[in-house]
Each structure stands twice: as C-alpha cells, then as structure tokens.
C-alpha cells in the first residue's frame, strides 16, 4: 500500500515534467538549412508563452502568417508551455543555435529578463512582446499595455456602474503579468474612485470560461443582485454571461472584458456584454515582423512601439467585427 501510494504521489509530482516532455520544443516549421541563395535570409525564433492559451495561439498563428510576407525571414515558433523554466531554456537554445533575432512573449516578464539580456549580450537582436520587458538596453519591444487595456474599460465603467452596485471580479492566473496589471488598473481606475461599489465575489478563474461559469453560478445563488461582471479577459466574461443567459433579472447586468475575442464581439453586438478592449494579435504580428525586418536590415537599431488599446462597445462593434472578418479571425 505504502509503495503504491508513494508511486502515486511520485507520479503526481512528475506529471508536469513529463507532460512537458510529451510536447517537446520542436519548432512548428522545419528548420531552414543554411541558405545559399543570393538574398540574405535571417533566422528568427518566436518563443510563445504557451500555445494552449487561446490569445497566445492567435498571436503565434498571426506571426506565422505575417512572416510569409517576408521572403528574407525564416521564422520558427517555439512553445514555452506556460513554464518559465522551459521558456528560458528555449531562449538559451536560440542563442546557441545562432538565430539572427529572437522574439520573446514572456510567461512572466522578470523570469525571462536575464535570458533576454543574454540574447542581447550575444549580439543577437531581441524583441519582447505581450508583455514587454522594459529597461533592457539594446532590446526592442512591441506591446499592448495591459494596464491601459483594463483602464479604458474601468474609466467607462465609472459612469456606467450604478450607485452602491454589487459586482463580481474574475481574475486571471495568479502571478501572470497581464492578469495582475489589469486587476491593478481596475483597482486604481475604478474601485479606488468608487468606494460605494461592493465586490461580492472575486475568484481566479484562470482565463477559463468553464471555471468562470462555475463561480458565477454560485454567486448568483449567494447574492440577490449582481450589477456588473468585471473580468480580466473576454473568455471569463463570456462564461459569466452564459450563466445568466435568458434570465430577465440580469438583463441589464454590465460585463467588461479584455482581448476582443470573436465571442466577445458577438456578445457586445447582441447587447449582452458592455465593452472590451481589443488586443489585436494581427496588429501585434504586423508590428513584430516589420520591426524584425527593420532591425535585421539595419534600418533601425532599437524599436519600442505599441499597438492601440481601443475600447469596443455597442457603438463601434460593427467596425471591429469587420476588421476581424477581413483578417480571417472571424469567419
């Protein structure tokens, strides 16, 4: 019995490690051979935070598509699997493999900082994105501002959320830079300015729709009313809205998210979700490849740029649905 239990506990401990081994860091595209063509071809590594995260997957797909437009760039995508240690190893591997440029989408910025510094010290161009790791001399960055993404929603909510409202908050994973920054923004831009608003439920739903649903189902039972759902991403907001779908009591409930997913766009269009902030992966990808090209061809030495943080609400949702349709994100 003891042996069995020991093996079970050992098994539980090694799961994350082995799970990682199961999906080795094979590049998504075949490694380019040393080119003998007349045009100089640059090797670019894109190290994604986690391709199982729907936004990160969208961004990785957009980066791959955008790279097709640059014949002088051979891009390889690596999956950091939401694991700092794995992602850091991949950055080190990229240095060893002598890539010309490394794009890092950090899992948690500070953990990747020394490794991105190593990239720069090795004489390789480095770009950090979604979110940027600021203050690395010689490294470039392309980002959206997570604080501002939540901020545009929070400032709109200041006048939309009724007096003495009861609200629930759905948080992203603990320690995640975007999750923390967005929550911080809601605190400073909204809760600190509206002390009359009471948080009647706050939980970490890990960006997931199903987890958010479960929490919302319980909050609906525990509270006589919920005036607003404040969610750090659209997926969780959609989960909360799924629970109260068709319930006339929650017809006027407000709901805020971030990302601008297709589902959120449709919910805003239907009048069920109040607003979101579009974090446009296509725009990020365009800027990433454009910046890469400029750095590699010597047109620029260092680039720090941001995409916009547009607030999407019922007044302008059609315009953004069109943009996402054109980019193929909404079919």
């Amino acid at each position, binding site marked *: 019995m003891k042996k069995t239990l020991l093996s079970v506990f050992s098994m539980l401990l090694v799961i994350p490690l082995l799970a990682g081994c199961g999906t080795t860091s094979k590049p998504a595209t075949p490694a380019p051979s040393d080119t003998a063509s007349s045009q100089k071809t640059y090797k670019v590594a894109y190290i994604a935070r986690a391709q*199982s995260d*729907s936004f990160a997957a969208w961004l990785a*797909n957009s980066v791959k598509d955008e790279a097709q437009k640059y014949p002088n760039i051979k891009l390889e995508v690596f999956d950091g699997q939401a694991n700092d240690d794995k992602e850091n190893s991949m950055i080190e591997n990229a240095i060893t493999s002598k890539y010309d440029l490394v794009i890092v989408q950090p899992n948690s910025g500070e953990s990747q900082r020394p490794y991105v510094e190593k990239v720069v010290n090795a004489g390789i161009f480095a770009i950090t994105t979604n979110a940027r790791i600021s203050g690395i001399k010689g490294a470039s960055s392309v980002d959206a501002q997570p604080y501002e993404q939540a901020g545009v929603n929070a400032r709109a909510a200041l006048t939309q959320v009724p007096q003495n409202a009861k609200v629930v908050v759905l948080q992203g994973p*603990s320690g995640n830079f975007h999750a923390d920054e967005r929550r911080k923004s809601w605190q400073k831009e909204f809760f600190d300015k509206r002390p009359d608003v009471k948080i009647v439920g706050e939980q970490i739903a890990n960006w997931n729709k199903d987890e958010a649903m479960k929490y919302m189902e319980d909050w609906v*039972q525990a509270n006589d009313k919920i005036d607003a759902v404040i969610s750090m991403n659209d997926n969780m907001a959609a989960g909360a809205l799924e629970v109260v779908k068709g319930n006339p009591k929650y017809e006027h409930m407000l709901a805020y998210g971030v990302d601008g997913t297709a589902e959120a766009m*449709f919910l805003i269009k239907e009048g069920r979700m109040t607003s979101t902030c579009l974090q446009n992966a296509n725009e990020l990808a365009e800027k990433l490849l454009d910046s890469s090209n400029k750095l590699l061809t010597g047109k620029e030495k260092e680039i720090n740029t941001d995409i916009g943080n547009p607030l999407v609400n019922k007044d302008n949702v059609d315009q953004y649905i069109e943009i996402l349709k054109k980019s193929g994100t909404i079919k």
Partner: protein
Amino acid sequence: MSTGNNFWTTIKKKYSIYLILIALFIVCSLANPNFLSVNNLTNISRQLAVTTILALGATMLIISGMLDLSSGSVLALAGVFAVSAYKTTGSLFIAIIVGILTAVICNIINALMISTFKAPPFIATLAMLTVSRGVALLFTKGQNILQLGHFTVLGQGSIGVIPIPIIFLVVIAVFTWYLLNHTRFGRSLYAVGGNEEASIASGINVHKVKYTAFIINGIFVGLAGVLFMSRVNAGLPNGAINYEFTALTAAIIGGTSFSGGVGTVGGTLAGAFIVGFLDNIMNLTNVDSYMQQIVRGSIIALAVIYDIHTRNRRANSMLGRIADKGATKK
C-alpha cells in the same frame, strides 16, 4: 453493550463516507441560507455532472488496478470533435456518436499500451493526456469554436425540472452500479484489481476485462465531452484542464483504493458531492481562491490517510484472526 458497539463499528466502517456527507450538508446549510435553495442544489448537481461521470469511469479503472490520467484531455478532444461534427452536419446524434467514438478510440489505445504492451497505466495515460490535448489544440489552432446553436440543449436544457446532465449522470451511475455489482464483468474487475495473477489462474481473461473497462470509460468520457462543450456553449480545446484530478479526488475520497479491488459507485458519488459541497460553500461564503486550494488539498490528504489507516487496521485484524486460528489449532 457489545452489540451496540458492533453496530456503530459496522456503521462507521461501511457508511462513514455518507455520514461525512450528511454532516457536511448540515454544516453548509447552517453556514449559508442560500445553500439549501433548490436552485443552488440543482446548480451543484449540474456543476458536478461532468466530473462525476469521469469519476465513475475512474472508479471502474482503479478497482481493476488501472488508472486514467488522460480523461480531461480526451474529454476536450472528444468535445471539440463533437462540436465540429455538429457545426458540419447540424445533427446532435452524429455529434454524440463522434464524441463517443473519439474517446473510445483514445481509450482503446490506452488499453493497448497498458494491457498488450504492459506499459504502466500512469505513463501510458499520461502520454495520451499530452497527445489528445495536442490534437485538440492543433485541430482548433488553439481557438474556441463558437456559435453552437441548438447543441447547448444537452448541457443547459432540462426535462421537466431536472437538468439533462443530471439525467445522464443518474443513468450512468445506475449502469455502473449494476455493472460492478450484478455482472460477471464487475466481479472480474474486482478480482483483477485485487490480485491479477490469481485472476489469470482462475481463468479470467484479464486482457478482455481491461479492454472492456477502458472502452466503457471511453463512452463515459465521450459523453462527458459532449455535455461539457454543450454546457459552456463553445468548443474549448483548453477546456477541462485537470478534470482527471477532480475525478480521481472524488473516487479516492469515496474510498476507492489505488491498490485495486476496492471501490463503490455510492462512495464515488458521495466523494464527488463532498468536493462539490465544499467548493460551493466556499464560493457562497466568498472564501478566497488560495484558501480553497489549501482546503481541497487537505481533504485529499485526509482521505488518503484515512484509507491507509482503515486498510492497516483491517489487515491487522485479519492477521490477528489468522494468528488466533493458528493458536487454536495447536
């Protein structure tokens, strides 16, 4: 006096899990007035349906000395395939069949690795966990499948006042109970889990038992996948992460032993509801996320310690009886 003691010992031994469940139910009712509302209890059952269906499959496998760590990922794969089939054909029936077939195929591969190639169950199903999640992500390119239309009826609809997922859960629980208690296959599962060599010696076709157990588990996981995606109104390739652990937790708390040969449907249902009640009351009373994790982990630890303790006591008393008999013979 001695009869009274025996009565309580029997009650404690056989029904302790149900006593814990009842005690927890009473504590929760007192802790928050909303707990006892019909809506809340229906919600708990609806929330538990998917993981409890997985737990019933897990119970069957653990009884026979096996394990399935892939059920959450296979559920997601079966679910996104089912959603995709529904979007293509518009047929709920085809969607369910596709979901079940997907999960059954994954489970046959599990059985092949474990029974035919003698791979340890946790390694084999761990491999399946990774592969099936990868296929789900590859198939959807990591994106959610949206606008499911009528597909949501299975997860969100009701027949009368009873939510459809609960009907599925009850049917599956009764089926599993019957299978374990009233069929030759059920007895074989206990025998194989209790002592595989002895089962082979007594003429049980162990391969057949293991394959059948995995196929039935596959049917459960496939159905759970359809119900899950229907409930969340989306095809989520990232859905149901760690559900296999929730299922295992329910089974372990319910008294299913990892050493095999021990476990009941009633115990697993009670285990699932203990976890469900705890989660629910912690949310109703707004206990923070970190504390919830600590409570959940502690409950598992207590259940496992209790399991070891009872097993040791049983073993000791059995050894004692054997020693007594030996002494009497002398």
